[in-house]
């Protein structure tokens, strides 16, 4: 058991130490969603409507930032030496994801501290639930980043996926416009988009929108998505070959 958890804790700790030593990273991740939120929110006269969307964007940026480092790290770096060690792949995956998720969580919480500007009024228990929900979303998005990054050979490939998949996925998740008023096929896409449920989970807890989907469905889908991604991460990382090309 020691041999399983020791690498997990070590990798988790490594992410935190690195983060602490490069504090300027926080600014890069939190600042741009904050600016987007203030601009769109102020322009539309409703800071509340876009708040959850911007919060998820913060988490998404952090998760992308952390998982993109896997590509270089695995080919020529720290991670490569871990991969030829006896530590199990599963514990390496778990350590990396937990570490990156914790960073996304911290940055999400920093963003959450701006909630009073959105005139959010919630009780202390809601705050506790929100802190948990932000972690859940952080874990999910990190898992998504991991699954994409693990098999990639170049960071430019990741950028392409980010622009063509992750950012559009975020756009049609209820972050910019609610599902209730969406038109045509976009509505169906939103319904199928797991991220929609992350946004509505946060909106429900922030009491910013009571619209569909409800809190129960949102929580269930988000947890299921997170677990599915964790499982997928384990599967891709346990593939035999570590290098796909010369």
């Amino acid at each position: 058991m020691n041999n399983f958890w020791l690498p997990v804790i070590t990798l988790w700790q490594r992410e935190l130490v690195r983060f602490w030593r490069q504090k300027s990273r926080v600014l890069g991740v939190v600042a741009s969603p904050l600016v987007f939120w203030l601009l769109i929110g102020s322009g539309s006269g409703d800071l509340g409507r876009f708040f959850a969307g911007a919060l998820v964007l913060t988490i998404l940026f952090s998760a992308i930032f952390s998982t993109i480092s896997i590509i270089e790290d695995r080919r020529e770096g720290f991670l490569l030496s871990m991969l030829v060690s006896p530590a199990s792949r599963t514990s390496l995956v778990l350590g990396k994801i937990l570490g990156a998720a914790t960073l996304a969580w911290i940055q999400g919480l920093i963003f959450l501290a701006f909630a009073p500007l959105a005139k959010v009024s919630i009780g202390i228990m809601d705050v506790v639930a929100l802190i948990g929900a932000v972690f859940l979303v952080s874990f999910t998005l990190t898992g998504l980043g991991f699954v994409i990054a693990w098999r990639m050979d170049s960071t430019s490939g990741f950028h392409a996926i980010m622009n063509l998949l992750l950012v559009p996925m975020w756009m049609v998740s209820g972050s910019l416009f609610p599902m209730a008023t969406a038109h045509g096929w976009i509505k169906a896409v939103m319904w199928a988009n797991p991220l929609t449920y992350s946004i509505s989970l946060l909106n429900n807890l922030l009491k910013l929108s009571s619209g569909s989907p409800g809190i129960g469905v949102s929580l269930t889908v988000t947890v299921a998505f997170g677990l599915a991604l964790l499982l997928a991460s384990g599967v891709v990382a346990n593939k035999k070959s570590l290098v796909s090309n010369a």
Partner: protein
Amino acid sequence: MILAENLSHQYGSRVALSNVSFEVNAGEIFGLLGPNGGGKSTLFRILSTMMAPTGGRAEVAGHDVARDPAAVRRSIGVVFQTQSLDKALTVAENLRAQGHMYGLSGPKLRERMEQVVERLGLADRRNDLVETLSGGLKRRVEIAKGLLHRPVVLLMDEASTGLDPGARRDLWQYVEELRSREGVTILLTTHILDEADRCDRLALLHQGKVVAEGTPAQLRSRIGGDVVVLEAADSAALARQIETRFGLKPSVMDGVLRVEIANGHRFITEVVEAFPGAIDSVGLHKPTLEDVFVRETGALIE
């Protein structure tokens, strides 16, 4: 200690290794010498369990690399060509993380870390961030990392790349000590001739095949006598002329002619007098591993 049997590997349709066989005895320093792209890195990746071969088999410390990678991983220390240190962490933090991967922790790990930093002369730098270290020191940390869990086999991929001659000398001193004091078996890849000369035995790798194998002295003795090197404005013409006049077949590479011949000094006077003005420069040397490589492959290593 290390065994390769008809080891082959293909990346898609490109053949990187074909039917490579060799054996490394316990306590030996074994070198894989060859140009970049010759198959060294592929072989290294297979032996270090980074990927499974597409054909043949290999064993390290008695375990099959493809069937039982976990057992192989416990037995090997790996020093990569590229940096595998986390630059944002200190030397000690890097080593501690490495120890944890091998299930080492607590006082046992601390004791072992003391030993390796002491051994590699890193004791006063242990709390420095890796990014503040020189290239030579970083290499030493890499080696310390590879040795932390007392592997029986150490695999090093172009370990002295980017090191100045002083640091390279130090590195070799550690490598030789490690073998003589602790009996560690060492396999290294290199394209540096000096380095290859210090190995106990070598395999010359070219286009995915082992073209020659033996001790450096055995390999050199394949060439009888001396090597004469000639440079000429029209090297191809000179080669033809030498062939008709002396019945020798010089190899021509990058405009340079090489002739293997006993009593090279006599040949030099003859050849210079035979083609006055056609030769720009003349050199004579005892056979090097490069000459052996040229003889076996018709190509240069570097």
